[in-house]
């Protein structure tokens, strides 16, 4: 990484700065050279051919770009790739076990939890993260008692999934699918 470089060119306009990184995506080491300005979402989609994570708003407001970082859900559109060289990244492509769907993927199909499908990869990664958080006893804004383990009823699932928007309005199916796996 060339962090010490003076990046101001002769004309006063800063030159792009690049960094050589070794990412870990879905358990596979992925060497990449990126501009420091590049987001993890763009690296996944444009450099690594992993187009599951979607660019919805590119401002952290829709959740379509959600991936798992060290097991916790995070927004790849607000993550600079240069910061992600020492974490484990899992995208929707990494959820299934070979040809065996992840339980959430199977439940999404069974519960008709999508229409156009654009938000679905983000919904799936977010749901996987939300289930892990609940399993770790994390409360949400609607958890009645901060000291008791959360019970993932519809209210809890809706609150915990509020970072993922679906313009088709497939929410009833999404809530049902997540609830089915949570039980």
């Amino acid at each position, binding site marked *: 990484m060339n962090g010490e470089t003076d990046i101001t060119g002769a004309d006063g306009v800063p030159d792009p700065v690049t*960094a050589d990184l070794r990412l870990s995506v879905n358990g596979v080491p992925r060497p990449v050279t990126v501009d420091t300005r590049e987001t993890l979402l763009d690296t996944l989609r444009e450099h690594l051919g992993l187009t599951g994570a979607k660019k919805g708003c590119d401002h952290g407001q829709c959740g379509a770009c959600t991936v798992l970082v060290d097991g916790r859900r995070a927004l790849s559109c607000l993550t*600079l790739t240069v910061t992600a060289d020492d974490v484990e990244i899992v995208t929707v492509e990494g959820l299934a076990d070979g040809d065996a769907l992840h339980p959430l993927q199977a439940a999404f199909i069974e519960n008709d939890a999508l229409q156009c499908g654009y938000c679905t990869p983000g919904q799936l990664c977010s749901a996987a993260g939300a289930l892990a958080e609940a399993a770790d006893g994390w*409360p949400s804004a609607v958890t009645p008692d901060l000291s008791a383990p959360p019970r993932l009823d519809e209210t809890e699932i809706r609150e915990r999934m509020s970072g993922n928007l679906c313009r088709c309005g497939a929410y009833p199916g999404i809530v049902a699918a997540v609830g089915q796996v949570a039980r």
Partner: protein
Amino acid sequence: MRPFTYERPADVRSAVAAAAGRPDAAYLGGGTNLVDLMRLGVATPRTLVDVTRISSRAIEETGGGLLIGAGVRNGDLAADPLVRRAQPLLARAVLEGASGQIRNMATVAGNLLQRTRCPYFQDVTKPCNKRLPGSGCPARTGDHRNLAILGHSEHCVATHPSDMAVALAALDALVHVEGPGGARTVPMPGLHRLPGDEPDRDTVLAPGELITAVEVPHLPFAARSRYRKVRDRASFAFAVVSVAAALDVAGGVVRDCRIALGGVAHAPWRAEAAEAALRGAAATPEEFARAADAELARSSPLPRNAFKAPLLRNVLVRTLTDLAEPAGFAESEPVETP
């Protein structure tokens, strides 16, 4: 986005040295606000100093309260058993903010230092005294529905967007800072400024100063507290108004209280006038309304956010009324001293 160099210093001292004397360097935490502002062209640092790996992610009991590392993620903070037990108001406020994904990324220090979501500040094609001092404030006559009713100036009517900061202002938190001039602590409220004629300065921090931890003193009546947030949708939206309150009632009289307000000012607003009016008063809705009015006497709503004054009054009265009724309050057991 403007090109920048990326540095990952080995420790806090090196981070402060890396940023010292370089006004176009910025510390990077979770990036949930800064990266977006860079993409929008609002923030144009030439150097990012990534402090996420050197900021403490520990939450510890001290003699008098909790010491929370600056690098603790919001999600970890709200889930921490110590925080949930000893400072439920803080846990509740954090859970009301943002989304699960953003809480997993955002740090304590970054949450405090996030910028306003005023639409003019975030739009580089518009004037904004906070972004470009002297360029003007279109919000005063334009879209200010979500902006300040307390403590604003002719130069800026922005609000501070954090929920967590409102709880910390109610809880008399101390912000630990390391900087080129050494270490110091900054009390809350007091970290965030009112806009005055320098709206470009959100906080009292000097250039290059880095938040290293937040200390939250023990509050004996912490269990009788509530964070109530009103927003335009049920979740994942900034506060239109919010109230962080804790109440100590004995024999129907308010012995002590803490009240801070969010979504109404350039800083998390400690409601000192309301608190003064309540101490020693009867714990009744009438007295709560009187206290709310004492605070709102200091407000100067704008044409399109005048609704915030009665909304805030109602939310404050209702929150205090709920807290005053032990029967209707689930978390009324006294908190153990840590």
